[in-house]
């Protein structure tokens, strides 16, 4: 039950990321000039950009409530101490995220705050996905340890991949909030795609029979593949509609999809990393009963 609830919170968080991307893509970030209320009300008239901005706040409030529920549930029902504290940390993150969102309104979209808001959103979603993973039955069944002695080290790749993805998401947020040009994000996409493909292919070559790692690797590769094409589509539609007097639906569609699949890429890289760190042992720690020994 807790696992299903964690999936629900993760799904709602992804919807929140979509709602946030709709705000930015529709240039509605400051359509409501006050915070935490909207035009001094709990429910303003949902017209024009207010629909996106206030809608984002409503979804954010819902996710905040759901996160409180998750943290409380974990605290009282979960045996693993570190997971209980991860629930508390996620609650802290959602509060910080709300305050950052408020600061973007009050201080008129300062770039560092807006970019931090975007980055923390991605991390928060990844945390929700991780909690869903930690509470799953497959996780509770335990690790199937394998030994990895090749180069590049899988554990090193596992540590590097999510940070490369997060850095790339930060560059994307910097483009969206006009702090940087497109070039660093394009270069970053090449680097991150290379890292992700390398890490995933290494897993598939060295440990093709390890179900958890294989699924994580395939998932990460597929999502990253789509993300690259969505990035190209988002750029092309933005250029094509740049002379329009207002944000055009086709540009909004591909940009929002690019942001949403960016969040999925981040979460997939975190799951990938977690699965490797959990299942892959350095050569000196080869345990009895490992998959390699079994094979």
């Amino acid at each position, binding site marked *: 039950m807790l696992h299903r609830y964690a999936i629900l919170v993760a799904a709602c968080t992804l919807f929140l990321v979509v709602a946030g991307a709709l705000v930015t893509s529709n240039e509605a970030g*400051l359509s409501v000039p006050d915070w935490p209320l909207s035009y001094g009300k709990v429910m303003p008239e949902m*017209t024009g950009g207010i629909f996106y901005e206030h809608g984002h706040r409503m979804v954010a409030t819902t996710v905040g409530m759901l996160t409180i529920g998750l943290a409380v549930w974990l605290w009282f029902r979960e045996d693993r101490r*570190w997971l209980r504290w991860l629930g508390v940390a996620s609650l802290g993150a959602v509060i910080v995220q709300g305050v950052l969102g408020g600061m973007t309104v009050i201080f008129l979209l300062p*770039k560092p705050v807006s970019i931090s808001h975007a980055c923390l959103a991605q991390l928060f979603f990844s945390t929700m996905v991780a909690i869903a993973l930690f509470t799953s039955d497959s996780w509770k069944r335990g690790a199937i340890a394998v030994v990895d002695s090749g180069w590049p080290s899988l554990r090193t790749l596992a540590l590097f991949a999510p*940070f490369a993805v*997060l850095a790339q998401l930060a560059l994307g947020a910097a483009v969206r909030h006009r702090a940087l040009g497109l070039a660093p994000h394009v270069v970053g996409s090449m680097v991150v795609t290379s890292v992700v493909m390398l890490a995933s292919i290494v897993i598939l070559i060295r440990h093709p029979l390890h179900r958890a790692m294989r699924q994580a690797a395939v998932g990460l590769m597929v999502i990253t593949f789509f993300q690259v094409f969505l990035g190209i589509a988002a750029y092309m539609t933005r250029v094509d509609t740049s002379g329009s007097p207002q944000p055009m639906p086709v540009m909004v569609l591909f940009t929002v999809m690019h942001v949403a699949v960016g969040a999925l890429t981040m979460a997939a890289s975190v799951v990938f990393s977690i699965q490797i760190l959990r299942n892959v042992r350095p050569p000196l720690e080869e345990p009895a009963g490992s998959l390699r020994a079994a094979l």
Partner: protein
Amino acid sequence: MFKKSLIALMTVAILLVAACGGAKEEAKKEAPAAAPAASAPAASDADAGSITGKISFAGAAPAPKNISMDATPACSRQHSTPPKSEEVIVGAGGTLKNVFVYIKAGLPAKEWPAPSEAVVLDQNSCIYKPHVIGVMVNQEIEIRNSDPTNHNVHPLPKVNREWNESQAPKSDPKRKSFPREEVMIAIKCNVHPWMRSYVGVVNHPFHAVSGDDGSFTIKGVPPGEYTVEAWHEKFGVQESKVTVAPKESKSADFSFKG
């Protein structure tokens, strides 16, 4: 082992998020406009001349783009046909409307008082009217909302202070001014992303905006040699050197290419 790795992963992630927003923006300091370095002999009003001209557009006139106001019925109801973007308005004979023309350099070091009357900027039919205005430093702009819906008025200056305020339907006008020279300041409404206007803020009264026929007139210009600049939101800026003799009406035409 796994727990340590997870803790290390989260710690580095938090540091990375902090680094994402690490770059500090320069604080926008708003100080009064610098006074002229030294006073110069003022030309008498009797000697004043004028600069007149016409803004033309070379090339095929771009088709005006339709604005979709469907997201706000209170806006769309006010238009029987889809309203057009005012970004580029080419008139009969290839003239260009909404070009801000002002004396950029050459004026004597004198302080001109800001006019007491405000320049009106109206939100009417969910469009800023007029599309381009010119004001003096500290001259008031009277911002009205004639629409039956909320707007938010959001100037995007680089030199002056940025602000963002809502304006309820038919509410009292807002009176705002900018204390520093800035050409140009975009004003947008985030509720209605097609709404955009531009304000040119200069520290003298020698400015004008081209009308429907692309013409402009800058009156009361003291004799002298000037650099006159013409600004258009899409086509950029052009400069021209103009010498005005006492009581002379001088011509200065500009041509923008699409």
